């Protein structure tokens, strides 16, 4: 079954400055791709994301700038990004909630973040929910966590483990 919760904090808003740090950045202008590798650290306002690698796919033709220019415009929040793919131990933290997973993809168009992995853990204060697929609508912050199916962890309908701290349930 699914668990709805408001993952309010996690927003990549279109107008706040973003800072990305990493060990290496490779911008492939013709492929329309910017790949950050090594201790990738993305900060926007209260939201923080850490991962091993983040690949930014920018819309074909939209970037058009020189390599680095394309990279500059190929960043979250800027107009012409298609999607982000993040892997290598993803950790996302907002004011109140933390989510960890193996992989995450964020589609700029639909503003939906999908985090997948053998164990996707969503922590909201003392509450901990574990499943295999967390889908967050960044616009509203609404998050849906799916359990791990009997087969691969990707199919829906598996069991979700939820740990609620009594004090925490207002």
């Amino acid at each position: 079954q699914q668990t709805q919760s408001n993952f309010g904090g996690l927003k990549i808003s279109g107008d706040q400055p973003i800072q990305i740090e990493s060990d290496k950045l490779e911008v492939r202008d013709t492929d329309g791709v910017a790949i950050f590798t090594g201790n990738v650290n993305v900060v926007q306002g209260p939201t923080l994301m850490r991962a091993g690698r983040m690949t930014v796919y920018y819309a074909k033709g939209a970037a058009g700038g020189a390599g680095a220019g394309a990279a500059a415009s190929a960043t979250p929040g800027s107009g012409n990004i298609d999607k982000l793919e993040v892997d290598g131990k993803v950790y996302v933290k907002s004011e109140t909630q933390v989510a960890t997973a193996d992989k995450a993809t964020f589609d700029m168009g639909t503003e939906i973040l999908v985090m997948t992995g053998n164990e996707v853990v969503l922590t909201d204060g003392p509450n901990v929910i574990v499943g295999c697929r967390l889908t967050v609508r960044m616009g509203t912050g609404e998050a849906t966590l799916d359990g791990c199916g009997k087969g691969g962890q990707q199919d829906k309908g598996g069991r979700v483990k939820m740990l609620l701290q009594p004090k925490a349930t207002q």
Partner: protein
Amino acid sequence: MSAAQQDTRRLPPSGRDHAFAGAIRHSRRVRFFKIALPVLSLLIAIGFAGYSWLLTPASVVIAVDGSAIRDGKIVMANPKMNGFTSNNLPYSMNAARAIQELTRTGAIELEEIDARFPIAADRWATIRAEAGVYDDETNVLRITSPITLTTSDGLQADLGPSEVDIAAGELRSPSPVRIEQGGSTISADSLEVLDKGTVFVFENRVRMQVDPRTVNGVGDRAEMQDAGQ
């Protein structure tokens, strides 16, 4: 005895005078060559240096306002060099002065470099630097001073000493670099531009700052200020 000596002894007196005259002519010829040869070799050296400066990659045209030879170097006043990269897009390289050692061709020291090379058919980059050495055999410009690189679409990059392979459109800058375009900046400890300027590899302490407002509102930045955001 060599044949010559036998001949003179057998010659009648007049023959001997004749041989003696031959010897004088010979030594005069030697004296002539003793002077002529060094001068000739100097001329050849200069010619070769000039020739190699002019020749460089076949498609390079070089204009020099004036040149002088000072302590074994050719000093050229604001040389202008135009050529074509491997995918035959035009590049140009001007400098305030070019200095070439007479003995060592290939390495031409340039001062106040102003180079312009293509990134794509409609995009180019200009490089300005204080000093550098251009190797016309490998068509590589080794810049030894800080560099400012700007591109036709508004990118501004500050780099340290770097190596620019003009024909291949590649640049290697092992020292810190900072690139800015439309409200975003990227800084890192090193940068390599590969594959004709289409692949940028930043390494070590890469940091990118993006202010989406300016990136999104790519329009007139002044108008953003008036909007008082």
